[in-house]
């Protein structure tokens, strides 16, 4: 999966769970920047990402995610892009 595809999917999932427009999101966005991104919504997000990417985060990662970019990087490492 290419990084762009991952990025697009992550943004889409965050926007649907936090019920915010994708345009307010960037890789530097943290939970604090988004209204309603509390610990509950965070668990929702983790569950949705795990479904989408068919992976399982370690608990330490779940509580340690710095910002949206960190999530994307982690997923990119797990899903290395296959060269065309």
């Amino acid at each position, binding site marked *: 999966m290419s990084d762009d595809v991952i990025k697009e999917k992550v943004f889409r999932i965050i926007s649907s769970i936090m*019920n915010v427009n994708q345009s307010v999101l960037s890789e530097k966005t943290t939970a604090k920047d988004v209204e309603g991104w509390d610990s*509950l919504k965070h*668990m929702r997000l983790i*569950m949705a990402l795990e*479904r989408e990417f068919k992976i399982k985060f370690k608990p330490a990662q779940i509580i340690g995610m710095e910002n949206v970019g960190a999530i994307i990087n982690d997923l990119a490492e797990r899903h290395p892009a296959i060269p065309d």
Partner: protein
Amino acid sequence: MRVLVNIDKVYETIHSLNDEKLPQLNITILRNITIDPLDAYIQYFAYQSGFLGQIQMGEYDNVMQEALLPTTEIFNHKPDFVLIFLKLETLSSKLTSQFSALSEKDIQEEKSNVLTYINSVLTGIRQKTAAPVIFHLFEMPCYPEMGLYDSQRQDGQSNTIQYLNAEIRAPRKNFSDLYFVDLNLCLMRLGHEKFYDNRFWFIGKQPYSLEAMQEIAFENIKIIRSIKGLTKKCLILDCDNTLWGGILGEDGIDKIQIGNVYPGAAFKAFQQQIINLYRQGIIIAICSKNNPEEVDEVLNHHPEMLLRNEHIAVKVVNWQSKTENIQHIAKILNIGLDHLVFVDDSAFEINLVKEQLPMVSVIQVFHEEPENYSNLLLSCGYFDKLSFSEEDKSRGKFYVDEVKRQKEISNYVTLDDYLKSLKMELEIKDVDLNYLARIAQLTQRTNQFNLTTKRYTEDNIKDFIAGNKSDVLYVKLKDKFGDFGVIGAAIIVYNNGDALIDSFLLSCRALSRGVEDALLCTLIKRAGKKGCKQICAEYIPTKKNKQVEHFYTDRGFSTVDERREGENLIYRYHLDLSLSAKIENKFHGEIR
């Protein structure tokens, strides 16, 4: 068996619901754990059943306060349902994680603490709302603390929890409309590994996985559907590769797969499941593209078939389109399309019905996996009910008889002659406590011949029959073909010399026989005896009860006014009791 609904799709669906004009369903959830996004799944399934779910989520581990304190706001939204999630781990760590340290006396004490707590919560809730309460029973430990030893003991941890679940379900005086979700069933279906997610339990006191929450939400929706009268009534089955393996027209009666070896054994098990539904009052119909004589040959003579003609109310075997045939079946049975479930292995037929008759529920079975048919059918929960009455027991057979009755109509010159020939016996009497369940069920399930469509619980009916301010009458019908049981009811309320017909309803099985006139005449006589000068009545239109819109005006009532109450338009009529002689009792038979 059900696939996990993509959670993205769940959120998208529920975020787009704001403009939908659907009846609201207010659900209050009390909990001592985190259960997110259970609310999203409930809203999603509620929407699929035609409701706009509004969830009031109680604060984490605040159940007792919310149930007892007069200041809690959580019940201010007039809940239609209250869901209680009390996880035993939070309620009693002694029983769940320190069981091996407990003496016999400690165990007794802790059991009684838990039960007392639950009783207080339930009592508190009942003082705040009469809404049905759905209680989630305790899960059994997958690994009891004392391992194997626990299984050898009568008083071990597992049995203690089982005891609690049994005690909670013991009948309660003065407390009806309490229902249970056995979380152990959800747990068994998914398996321990898939049901729990310990990461979220330790991070945020959230025990269940997404899959588990979907399963739990669906279990609740099944209860809600049943209370709202949305239980399906008729199962329509295709034949080839659905009831048996193979194609009858090509393989012949000797080669179709049904019997005691695979795959025939799996089809036979599915047929057993269908017969079990028939015994619970589900109407069975067949809709198949085949030569009718050949299907009859199988139903009558194939030695391995379990399903026989005696179980089948309507058989439509021809080469016409299945959508036409399904409509035909609904018409013969006189039930709505939305009460039908259609099962077929052909994607073509399933999609055609889905597209052209979206009200019909469909299940596609996969003929390479007949071993899954039964669970697939059961996992949809379309026929799940919360109670089981005498009427349910014989309903499947009733419809088989009913179709015979209709065939006999054509032998008579007029309908009156036919009705006379039926030798009907009607019993219209006051409801006593034995009839509460059936009358409540009728108010919840009757849609077409129902003047006001007011849904009542057993408690409501009990209130109506207590005192002398109102009467509840039931209608029982018999004819030469069989016993219908209780097929109608009316509630009449007296107030200062006026009588008001609060509810007036008949099961669609009893229509076109003059029963409605007999019931109305009885109500009028009753009002006269009570010294009423006039009798008032109402008609509240719904999508389904158009057939009764002129019921009262056709019988000499005059229209008083119409008014709007919330979503309902209410037409009001009245009849001066001195003129009531005009109402003709068209019932041909004996009335007791």
